[in-house]
């Protein structure tokens, strides 16, 4: 086909583009991914047995909130990186805030606790499996994020992959918080964060392959 004819046919079927199309697509991908992740969590681990009492405690909401807020900030950043010539800008600093807040709270609880409680605070009883569970539960979210971003036009694939992974890891951690019965802030600061980092690393490594569009 000649270029002139191509231009004619492209402008012939022109339809108005509603603003916010990018945000809607990212929200749809992550929303479907979250449904998948929740299904995995329910089928595999199930909600913690004392969920009814737990939702009355601040620790539950700190865990859930840390993961969910981080995930939502990264989702906004992801929508930005899904566009050509994207600039992450000040949003990177905003994304660091939940980490800093949780690390500070964890450090405070840690120094206030008696030394004989330190080991249990850091390691809980699931530290060795927690990051892996977060990553596994985050996989459907990662698939949703990849689907959404591939259909847009990322031009920095590694960065977009990193953020897609981090976002899936963080939202996956929020889903996992419903199943997890750990109760210490230092545990949260270390092992939840590690799960998110695991997914971010996976996203960065696979980004240039998974997110390539034609």
């Amino acid at each position, binding site marked *: *086909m000649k*270029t002139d004819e*191509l*231009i*004619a046919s*492209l*402008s*012939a079927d*022109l*339809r*108005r*583009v509603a603003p916010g*199309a*990018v945000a809607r697509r990212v929200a749809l991908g992550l929303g479907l991914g979250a449904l998948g992740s929740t299904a995995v969590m329910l089928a595999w681990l199930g909600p913690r047995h004392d969920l009814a009492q737990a939702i009355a405690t601040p620790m539950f909401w700190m865990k859930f909130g840390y993961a969910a807020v981080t995930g939502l900030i990264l989702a906004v950043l992801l929508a930005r990186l*899904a*566009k*050509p*010539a994207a600039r992450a800008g000040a949003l990177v600093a905003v994304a660091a805030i939940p980490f800093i807040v949780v690390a500070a709270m964890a450090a405070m609880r840690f120094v206030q606790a008696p030394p004989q409680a330190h080991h249990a605070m850091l390691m809980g009883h699931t530290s060795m499996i927690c990051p892996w569970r977060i990553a596994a539960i985050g996989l459907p979210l990662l698939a949703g994020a990849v689907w959404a971003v591939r259909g*847009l*036009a990322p*031009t920095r694939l590694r960065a977009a992959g990193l953020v897609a992974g981090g976002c899936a890891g963080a939202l996956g951690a929020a889903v996992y918080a419903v199943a997890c019965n750990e109760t210490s802030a230092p545990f949260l600061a270390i092992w939840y964060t590690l799960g998110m980092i695991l997914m971010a690393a996976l996203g960065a490594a696979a980004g240039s392959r998974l997110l*390539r569009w*034609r």
Partner: protein
Amino acid sequence: MDEIEPRLKGLMLAGLAGEAGPYRRLLDELSGLLRAYYGRRCPPGVDAEDLVQETLIAVHTRRATYDAGQPFTAWAYAIARYKLIDALRRGRAHLRAPAEEAEALFVPAGADAAMAARDLDRVMADLPPRTRSLIRETKIEGLSTREAAERHGMTESAVKVAIHRGLKALGGKYGGDSLDED
């Protein structure tokens, strides 16, 4: 750049609002710019016009990713560059050497020289026979002008003139820098 940016951005925003006329003008102008951009950078084996078309299609199908707060030129350039890098990657994948080509490595010794001699014969085929042998003797076999003159029973200056004309004729035919040494 100063005047291109506001004009293209205006056309793009009109296009996003569904106006076909300005949108078509945008793609027209963009295709010219892309042709110039890829013309200089297109990897071997890839048709620059294919890249122009691919980029126009990407601009069209992914136009929702343009947001009005951003310079249009930066957005379009990022897509053009992405498509170029993609073409370079694909080009590299296609350039794999065939497995069944041992003779490419084990060429008989001297094959290159034989090929060069054959090329030279072909290049000089149009020259008069005496000029041809004068050039061969002085420029390749290394005879002096005087030795060549004696061999052909010519004066030294007649040899120089014949060689000069012969080389000039070759230079005119095959272009490039003058072969003339005088």
